[in-house]
């Protein structure tokens, strides 16, 4: 398993991030950081700006203001492929596997930018499949023909195969049953422990957040409402108010 030795390189820092859509503030001076070796939960009601934060980090949206630093290097305003090559990878709320490609080629596409030989690529695919418990017999099947839970893991494998420094995971529990959600939580914990990377997890299922996350950031209307351990934010009155609309 690839182990990142330079832990500081895997540090994601967001300072006073802002994003305006016309007159709407999708993100409003949000600041938080994701540390190496931890899973950071990013939660909030629908429309809180969680996915917009991911889109800013990955370069799909250009922030109106604020800074995003990876290992101390400012990345805001860079193009998506450049940010990806620096080591930020993500999965999607609605699974976006490549339709016409096999599982093998889907995962291999994730490592395209890392260079290396065809043999090294196959070895990396084999390693990440073992890490995520994906049976090698699945490799030659069309990725989109797999069961939903397996597709989630293939998407995770595609993100992890390039040995990222930061992994952004967008609602991996959507559409999964309780057992599959538990598996995803365990896999994320294992990945963080073995790779010492930073993982940011968006999830509506607070049970998954409690199981998988070391710390949680709560967003509401684009602003950071609270930060802390899952237990701390669960008992925070402002968080409770945001969730139940009080």
């Amino acid at each position: 398993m690839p182990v990142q030795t330079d832990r500081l390189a895997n540090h994601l820092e967001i300072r006073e991030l802002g994003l305006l859509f016309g007159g709407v503030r999708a993100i409003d001076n949000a600041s938080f950081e994701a540390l190496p070796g931890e899973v950071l939960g990013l939660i909030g009601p629908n429309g809180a700006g969680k996915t917009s934060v991911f889109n800013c980090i990955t370069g799909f949206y250009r922030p109106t203001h604020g800074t995003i630093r990876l290992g101390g290097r400012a990345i805001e305003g860079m193009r998506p492929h450049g940010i990806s090559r620096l080591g930020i990878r993500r999965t999607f709320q609605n699974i976006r596997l490549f339709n016409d490609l096999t599982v093998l080629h889907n995962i291999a596409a994730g490592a395209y930018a890392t260079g290396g030989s065809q043999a090294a690529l196959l070895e990396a695919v084999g390693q990440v499949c073992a890490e995520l418990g994906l049976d090698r017999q699945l490799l030659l099947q069309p990725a989109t023909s797999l069961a939903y839970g397996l597709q989630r893991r293939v998407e995770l494998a595609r993100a992890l195969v390039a040995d990222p420094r930061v992994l952004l995971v967008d609602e991996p529990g959507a559409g999964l049953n309780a057992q599959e959600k538990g598996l995803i939580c365990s896999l994320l914990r294992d990945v963080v422990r073995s790779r010492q990377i930073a993982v940011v997890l968006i999830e509506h299922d607070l049970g998954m957040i409690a199981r998988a996350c070391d710390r949680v950031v709560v967003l509401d209307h684009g602003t950071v409402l609270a930060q802390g351990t899952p237990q701390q934010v669960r008992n925070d009155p402002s968080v409770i108010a945001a969730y139940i609309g009080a």
Partner: protein
Amino acid sequence: MLIGLVLGSFYALIAAGYTVIYGTVRLINFAHGDVYMIGAFVGALGFGFLSPLGVGPALVMSVLGTLLATAIVGFLIRLLLARLDSAPGSFSPIIAAVGISLVLENGAFHLWGSAPAAFPLVMPADGRKIALTLAAGIAVLLATDYWIARTKFGIAMRAVGSDHGATRLMGIRVEYVLYVTFAVFSAIAGLTGYLAGSYYGSIQFSMGFALGLKGFTAAVLGGMGNVRGALVGGLVLGFVEAFGGGWLGTEWTDVIAFSFLIAVLTLRPSGLLGETVVQRM
């Protein structure tokens, strides 16, 4: 049968370009057949100019020159199309592709005239002509299939065809992949023009229109967006034309080819190797 295979390999090589470009940018590149014509003329001019060096060096250098020139044409086509509105439903790219086709065809007409010109490298008129052309055509087909199905770049190209946004997040430079795709498949079209010129012995400014139409037909027949489908579609179309023409007369080949296309699409709307996509309600 062999003549059908030769014809089919030309169709298949052009169809591969149509289908891959459609697969990556959802555009029917109507200028693709004209790049085939440009390849034939560049090859003829190059071989004629270099022939004092001897057949071997002139052949190698004129083929390389044809590949380079048509790759540049493909690059420039992409450069132009990339600057147009490519929003879904926009007619700009397809109208631009038709415009580029007309510019290339009419440009060739004004440069080289309307009369058929002799291709200077004439293959021997015996069985070797078919064997050589077929060997070259099949070799390019197999190399193309290998490149798309087995190499890292081929995987990236197919990923781009599936989802531009997700591909960017894999660190893949989508525009770079698109430029290379246009350049490589234009070079393949140019090489096909060179092969066809030396096979038939004559070239003409309008030769790209007919073959482009048949190449597009082969791509649809095989299943648009499916590379192996395009290769199979081209070979099948070549066979059907050769057999049908031999049976009813060559003046019937177009009637036979397009009747066959309509019959296949009626029975199998997604083409020979295309997959039927079930729309969720």
